């Protein structure tokens, strides 16, 4: 009985419990990533996956007897910042994609064959706008 | 290593001008011609120097490490010089011819660039000192020839080019695999007269047989052995100098030369016989000779007929090698040169007919001997040489092959030669007869004069000179075959010196 209790206690120690939770989050994120279409949701799913990773890392760091491993925590902090940067960039891309195409999902298919590809080295530029201007103005109804 | 620079110089005497020509603007005709002829002349001179050196018994060798344990080796032995001199001489002639042939046509820089590249590759093949080097130049040749085949840019030309590449690249891969395999087994040895695989014969007999088949498939496509030959007649859509190059100087020869190298210098004739490899090769060569002769008989298109004739004639070389006796090898090797000279004459003539009078079919040749006597004379010499009539080059070959067949105890090969000669006569005599004795009633249609104005001779001198030259050469090498420096004399030297076989004293 004692042994069982000990095993349970061991299992439920944060050093194992949280990593397990992290693994679940990771799997959950992966599941969501596969299942959902909207790009924002996909970004959320990736963030949840990332959180899963951090949870594993912090859980592992907290496994020992003494104070938690500061290196792991530092790594997590770095990871979070990286994640937020990537998220911010991804969101910016999503906004621009929606602006250009009118939807925020990824279209399947190879970039064939008649898709107009613009060549930036040819474009005429005006002082007040970047290439994006032109793309957007083309995209919009006259 | 001292002599190595000579080999490199020979290689670069065409490569350098070739690359320079690529970057030459289209209109710099004079400079291009100068580069072309300069390169060709330099190469000829350098090969001459090398020839003298090898005759003296000097060693020439250049090596460059490519991979650990594997080197790029250029070496000059008598056999390589045979091929090198052939291509140097014929290249010179073909260059002159091509300059005349392409006068006024577009994209000549590209053409001559690749043309030079082709010849560099061919000389590289000739001077290769081991299989890997051989393979390298062999594949370069494949690639450099393709732009020439498709040079006209017509859909037919492109399709022909595609077929050519499909055949040659596939065979190249087979060859590649076989060579890597062989190198794994036996190491990256250089070509050794008598072969270097003796040590493996006991343990790896089956492997060696399989490898031989693979190697033959690899070389057989370029050498146009029969089930692998279909690209060659199709590649006829290329301009005449290219056909000449394909059939006489470079491509087909490269394949045949590869077979010679493999049989003589990799396996060695003895081992090849012991493993039963030559017998198979012999049968394939015989079938090729007869089959393609029959095909040649079936066509009315002059160049197509010539192409099938090439298929047949190149197999003479292989037949000789497969006989694997001294006389057979002499016959095979000497045909390497003889076929080249003779066939290039014929192709030049066909080109002249097409270029000067717009004639492509044998049935249109009636009476052409009166309009273009020199070309027709050259054609006649070439055709008779192909049939194997003395004193032309082809006879010397046939004679040695016949004797070689008997020497190797295979009299049925003589029957093949007889049949083939009959077939050769059957498809080569009609154009000759039509040309000299046929009657033409309507006036000639003159595309060349229409676009380039009247010519002093029967056609542009740059088209005429090569024809006359090679025809005369074909006559002389046969007539003076007994000279020491004639192809026959040189080949006998190879056989005596490198294979330690007694020459056949007549």
């Amino acid at each position, binding site marked *: 009985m004692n042994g069982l209790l000990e095993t349970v206690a061991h299992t439920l120690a944060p050093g194992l419990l949280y990593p397990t939770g992290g693994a679940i989050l990771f799997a959950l994120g992966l599941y969501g*990533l596969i299942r959902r279409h909207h790009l924002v949701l996909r970004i959320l799913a990736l963030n949840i996956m990332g959180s899963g990773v951090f949870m594993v890392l912090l859980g592992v760091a907290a496994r020992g007897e003494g104070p938690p491993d500061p290196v792991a925590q530092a790594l997590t902090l770095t990871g979070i910042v990286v994640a937020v940067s990537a998220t911010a960039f991804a969101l910016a891309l999503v906004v621009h994609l929606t602006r250009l195409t009118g939807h925020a999902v990824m279209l399947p298919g190879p970039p064939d064959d008649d898709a107009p590809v613009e060549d930036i080295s040819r474009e005429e530029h005006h002082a007040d706008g970047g290439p994006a201007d032109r793309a957007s103005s083309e995209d919009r109804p006259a | 290593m001292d002599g190595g620079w000579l080999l490199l110089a020979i290689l670069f005497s065409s490569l350098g001008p070739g690359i320079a020509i690529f970057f030459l603007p289209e209109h710099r005709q004079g400079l291009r011609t100068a580069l072309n002829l300069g390169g060709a002349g330099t190469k000829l001179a350098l090969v001459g120097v090398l020839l003298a050196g090898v005759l003296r018994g000097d060693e020439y060798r250049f090596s460059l490490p490519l991979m650990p344990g594997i080197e790029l080796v250029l070496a000059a032995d008598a056999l390589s010089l045979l091929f090198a001199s052939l291509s140097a001489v014929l290249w010179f002639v073909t260059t002159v011819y091509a300059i005349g042939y392409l006068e006024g046509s577009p994209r000549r820089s590209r053409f001559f660039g690749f043309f030079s590249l082709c010849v560099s590759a061919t000389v590289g093949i000739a001077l290769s000192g081991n299989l890997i080097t051989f393979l390298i130049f062999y594949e370069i040749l494949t690639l450099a020839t393709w732009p020439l085949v498709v040079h006209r840019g017509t859909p037919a030309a492109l399709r022909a080019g595609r077929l050519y590449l499909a055949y040659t690249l596939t065979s190249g891969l087979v060859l590649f695999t076989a060579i890597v395999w062989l190198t794994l087994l036996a190491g990256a040895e250089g070509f050794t007269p008598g072969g270097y695989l003796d040590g493996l014969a006991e343990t790896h007999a089956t492997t060696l047989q399989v490898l031989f088949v693979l190697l033959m498939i690899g070389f057989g496509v370029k050498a146009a052995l029969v089930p692998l030959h279909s690209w060659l007649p199709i590649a006829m859509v290329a301009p005449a100098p290219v056909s000449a190059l394909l059939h006489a100087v470079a491509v087909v020869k490269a394949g045949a030369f590869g077979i010679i190298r493999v049989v003589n210098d990799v396996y060695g004739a003895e081992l090849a016989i012991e493993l039963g490899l030559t017998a198979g090769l012999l049968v394939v060569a015989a079938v090729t000779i007869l089959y393609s002769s029959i*095909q040649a008989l079936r066509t009315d298109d002059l160049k197509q007929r010539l192409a099938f004739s090439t298929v047949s004639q190149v197999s003479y070389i292989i037949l000789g090698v497969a006989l694997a006796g001294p006389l057979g090898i002499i016959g095979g090797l000497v045909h390497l040169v003889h076929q080249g000279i003779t066939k290039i004459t014929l192709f030049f003539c066909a080109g002249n007919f097409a270029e000067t009078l717009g004639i492509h079919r044998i049935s249109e040749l009636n009476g052409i001997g009166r309009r273009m006597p020199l070309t027709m004379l050259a054609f006649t010499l070439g055709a008779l040489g192909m049939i*194997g009539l*003395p004193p032309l080059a082809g006879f010397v070959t046939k004679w040695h092959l016949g004797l070689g067949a008997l020497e190797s105890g295979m009299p049925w090969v003589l029957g093949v030669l*007889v049949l083939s000669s009959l077939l050769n006569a059957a498809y080569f005599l009609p154009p000759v007869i039509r040309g000299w004795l046929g009657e033409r009633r309507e006036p000639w249609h003159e595309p060349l004069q229409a676009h380039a104005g009247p010519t002093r001779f029967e056609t542009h001198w740059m088209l005429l000179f090569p024809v006359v030259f090679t025809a005369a050469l074909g006559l002389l090498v046969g007539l003076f075959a007994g000279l020491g420096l004639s192809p026959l004399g040189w080949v006998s030297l190879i056989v005596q010196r490198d294979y330690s076989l007694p020459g056949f004293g007549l």
Partner: protein
Amino acid sequence: MNGALLLAVPLLPLVLAVFVGLRPGRARLNRMVPWTALPGLLLAALAPTGLEATFDSLLMGTHLALDPTGRAFLALTAGLWLAAGLFALSERRDDPRRHRFYVFWLLALAGNLGLILAQDALAFYLFFALMSLSAYGLVVHSGKPEAWRAGRVYLILAVLGEVLLFAGLVLAVHSAGQSGLAAVAAARPDGWALVLLVLGLGIKAGMLPLHFWLPLAHPAAPVPASAVLSGAMIKAGLLGWMRLLPIDAAGHAVLGEMLMLLGLAAAFLGVLIGVVQVRPKTILAYSSISQMGLMTAGIGLALLLPEARGGLLAAVTLYAVHHGLAKGALFLTAGMAGQWPASIPGRALFGLFTLLPALALAGLPFTSGALAKNVLKGPLAAEALPGWLSHTELLLSLAAAGTTALLLRFLWRWRTGLSTPADGAPDRRRWWAWGSLAAMAVLLPLGVWLAGPDGLPVTAGDLYGLALLWPVLLGLVLAGITWRWIHDRETPRVPEGDLAVLAEAAWRRACRAERRLRLPPPQPRRMPARLRVLRLQLRQRLEDAERVLTRWETIGLLFSAAMLGLYLTLLAR
């Protein structure tokens, strides 16, 4: 020096051929054409015995020499070509394409002279081929359909002959181990080599059953060409036999009997078919077949009777010379049909020149024919031949009777074509050429008797002999019977070229088949439409498949599947 002399003989016509070919218009060059045979004649007459030369650098070593047999053949050949050449010069005077004729003439001449001097297999083959193939140009020169047909048959047989000869030579040289003709013969070619050599040379010699080019080619070719063809060129085959067959002390009974059989058969068949022909030159052609048959039989005898081979060979040679000159003269006679003189003395001379060679061939005493026949029959009396061969002498005489009849037939058919020349003036050059050849019918035996060359002891008795008369008489009777009983027709009862008709039927069928089998022009084929559609479909499928792969859920699933797969493989130790 010797070498240069020997080489000059065949080289001179070759050089001239090049010049004539390059400058077709030059009359002066044309006039030199006949005289290129002269050095050969001079050499035959004046050269010291044992003249020989070796050229190592030519081909695979060339050996030229003038031996007694060669001397006789050279004299015949050069003389005949000279006379015929002179004849041709005037006969071809108005031919717009005469320079072409001359080029082929010179080439064939070179070959013919050269093969006599050649003493090694390669050179022999070289000149033999040169002669055979160049003669094609002479045969088809007129450009008429008849000539083309004759040329085709001639060419096919010539090439076949070349090839067979080549194979035979290769086999023979291989077993001899060297290429000298004497060595080859000494090594006694046998088996296939022998068969090939006999056949290859036999085609040229008009041997049965490969004779049928002769009756086609002779009438089709211009007169002087027929003269040299029949007088000189077909002797090349004979010479080849004499040089290459194992005519030595051992002999060769089987071959000898075979040659006897073929030769005698040719002798009789030639007569039989010849007499039913209508064109004079065709008749002469069959006569040639018949006469060559006799010479073939002579070779056969030499093989059968090794002890007597020396005399027999000399006899055959003599016979060849005699026949060459006489037949040459007769062919020129055919070409003189338009020169029937108006004056009586002229007509007498004309008649004499006409009859002389004819009678010589028939074997009238004191003609060359008599001498030749006597010499040939000489050894027969001494030796005993087995079986049917014991009747050889009788058979030879019967053949002579046939010859007489055949020549009468010729004269008869020829007579109908006689006419006087339009301008009335005799063509002197033709007369000279013709006359000198005709005169040889009596001059030759005289010369031989007087000079008495080595190996050919000729007694005065050989010049005549009553045994020769009865066949001539028999021939006259036969001719009379023929003339009396057989109604003459304008088309021959047996078509010209007998066997050639059969061969040509087969040839025509082959040609039809060839037309059907003709290859399409060398165009690389486009991909068939069905395949192209398939390719498009495949392309579409690929695009669709890639689109499926591109779907995000596919990426995710594949990613997870990859992880799982990797994990499983890592577990599988």
